[in-house]
């Protein structure tokens, strides 16, 4: 083997044995390091998985949602508006929708009440019946066949029987959902016939969505048109922002760890100092000792990173990230119980590496150099 490679091999070998000779100190460092990696990796893996879930689900929605606006606030759409949109070229289907929010004091939560679209006959709810999301079921302790009582803000009373609880796989967007029959819904909210909450437009050609939205906005200037891409972008940005915020909050932990690393690297025991002095005295150069110490740092980083990432993966995908749900999921009190699709990608790993390994190596650079610069004649005195 080439001398340069052989030298590297010797140094690596010596580094491994050096670490093994001080198990307590090094193990302690690896554990703390791995914990920091675990925390950051958990946040990142979880955030990324949630974003993936959300984008997969949004992909099933309508390409354009049209909402009437009055004085900058959301208004109800009328049948005439719906008809105006039906004539648009490129629109395969125009679906007026009925949905609204309800504050339920019994369950201390906000529900989304909705009438399933006519285009989805399998989802049709019979009069007097209801289909609920798993969060609603939990909050009101419902099961199939049990009664669900709702009271509207104006005092209207609705009695329904639960026929189905929506699967947990859709929980991210359906957790707070209550699906009702149309006449039940209108009676509950005191809505006359011919008004709708908003209108969904299904566009045949995805490349046309922008043009269709433009044409529609010309036809109904009082409306706003939100495309699916807009929503996907918003969700992506929102989740990503929350993830970043959580990471920023963990900056404190990272800083504490960096200080610990610096301290450990600086505070050599007398025995370690003696050993470096001996190495220098018997012919090791400063650069040899720096290389040795950096190999040690690299090995510690490698172990800690691996342990931290594997533990985080298990935490997020096997234990549903129990520690972080509140921060990242909720805008309601009905936290969905999600089983996330396991995955990891190179960008996430690289980001994690830059967030953890780079600060660690930076923290130990000066202590390592100072150690390596020991006077070789120090062992003589």
């Amino acid at each position, binding site marked *: 083997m080439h001398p340069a490679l052989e030298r590297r091999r010797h140094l690596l070998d010596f580094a491994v044995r050096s670490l093994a000779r001080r198990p307590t100190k090094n193990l302690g460092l690896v554990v703390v390091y791995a914990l920091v990696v675990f925390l950051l990796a958990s946040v990142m893996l979880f955030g990324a998985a949630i974003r993936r879930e959300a984008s997969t689900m949004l992909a099933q929605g309508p390409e354009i949602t049209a909402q009437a606006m009055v004085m900058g606030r959301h208004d109800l759409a009328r049948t005439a508006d719906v008809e105006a949109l039906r004539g648009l070229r490129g629109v395969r289907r125009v679906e007026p929708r009925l949905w609204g929010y309800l504050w339920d004091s019994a369950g201390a939560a906000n529900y989304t009440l909705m009438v399933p679209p006519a285009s989805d006959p399998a989802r049709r709810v019979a009069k007097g019946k209801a289909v609920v999301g798993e969060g609603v079921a939990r909050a009101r302790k419902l099961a199939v066949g049990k009664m669900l009582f709702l009271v509207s803000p104006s005092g209207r009373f609705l009695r329904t029987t639960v026929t189905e609880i929506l699967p947990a796989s859709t929980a991210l967007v359906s957790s707070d959902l209550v699906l009702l029959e149309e006449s039940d819904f209108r009676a509950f909210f005191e809505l006359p016939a011919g008004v709708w909450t908003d209108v969904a437009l299904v566009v045949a050609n995805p490349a046309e969505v*922008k043009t269709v939205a433009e044409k529609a*906005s010309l036809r109904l200037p009082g409306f706003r048109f939100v495309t699916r891409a807009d929503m996907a972008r918003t969700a992506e*940005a929102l989740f990503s922002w929350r993830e*970043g915020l959580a990471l920023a909050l963990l900056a404190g932990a990272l800083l504490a760890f960096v200080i610990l690393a610096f301290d450990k690297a600086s505070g050599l025991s007398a025995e370690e100092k003696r050993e470096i002095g001996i190495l220098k005295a018997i012919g090791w150069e400063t650069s040899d000792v720096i290389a040795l110490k950096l190999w040690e740092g690299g090995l510690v980083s490698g172990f800690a990173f691996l342990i931290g990432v594997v533990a985080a993966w298990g935490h997020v995908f096997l234990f549903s990230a129990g520690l972080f749900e509140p921060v990242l999921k909720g805008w309601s009190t009905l936290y969905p119980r999600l089983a996330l699709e396991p995955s990891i990608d190179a960008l996430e790993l*690289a980001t994690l590496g*830059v967030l953890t390994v*780079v*600060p660690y190596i930076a923290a130990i650079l000066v202590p390592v150099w100072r150690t390596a610069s020991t006077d070789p004649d120090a062992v003589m005195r």
Partner: protein
Amino acid sequence: MIFHPPILALIGASALSGTVLAASAGFAARLLAKWDPASGSERQIGLERTTYLVSTVVAFVLVVEAVSLVLFAFNADRMAPLFVGAMCAVGSLNASPWGFPTLWAKIVVFFAAFVWLVIDRVDNRTRDYALIRVKYAGLLILAPLVLAEAGLELAYFLDLKADTITSCCGKLFGEGKPDIGGDLASLDPRLALGLLGGGLAVAVGLGLAAPRHRLAAVLHGLAAVAVFGFALAAIVAAIGPYIYEQPHHHCPFCILKREYGHVGFALYLPLFLATGAGLASGVLAALPPPASLAAAMPTVQRRLTRVSIGGFLLFALVAGTAIGRSGLALLG
């Protein structure tokens, strides 16, 4: 737009690089003022000792910058869906006027650090620190470059705003956005490939002569930089479309992605290495030659030009293979 994990990582890494180099620049100023290799005083010994730290620090910064460059590009690609009209990294970079300047700055910093480390290595082989003053004067240039890059990157990320729905907004997105195309994309592919081929030939020829002739080495350095430019232009105008098998897909970043077999790495890695080595060779030759290096210099130049020529030839091979295997007929 700061609170995305890759962005936090990038800003953190740049800030770290900038800080350590700023500290190193402070040392550089002190060294240039007080350096006296003939002296055995404690101050001189202290200065010599600290040069080890600076070398290690700059090597660290080089690695961080290299990783950061790749992370920056991949993150830009990942962010593209957040900006209306952006289909890949190019779109994200265009979403702010600071985007592309940041990328160029990162590339410049990479090469500057690379050249510095080569000079450092050469200097360490001399018995009288022949290049130390040049080296540390160079550090006084490198440090502001890194700080500038960090500043540009911060400005870019602060300026970015995802095109998200706001509650009062009734207008549509996409109106009035700048076009993502560019002059490079409209460059004639024949011309681009011709320039690249010609540039490569000149660079290789000069590289072969460099160990024996100082002027050839200097020109080789210039040629390496020119080839880098031609290569980027060729990737955008011709090689990229061949790889994508799509005459209008000019993105220089998408070739790094999995669906194209990560072939971008096989192109960019040798290109960057070759350019760095060639540039280092040119810079070394351009410096006033110290006596203690006279014997060693030809060997050093030979090693550098070998890397440079090898890298460029490998790039040409990968590019040629990609073009040859492509189903697209761009030039016919």
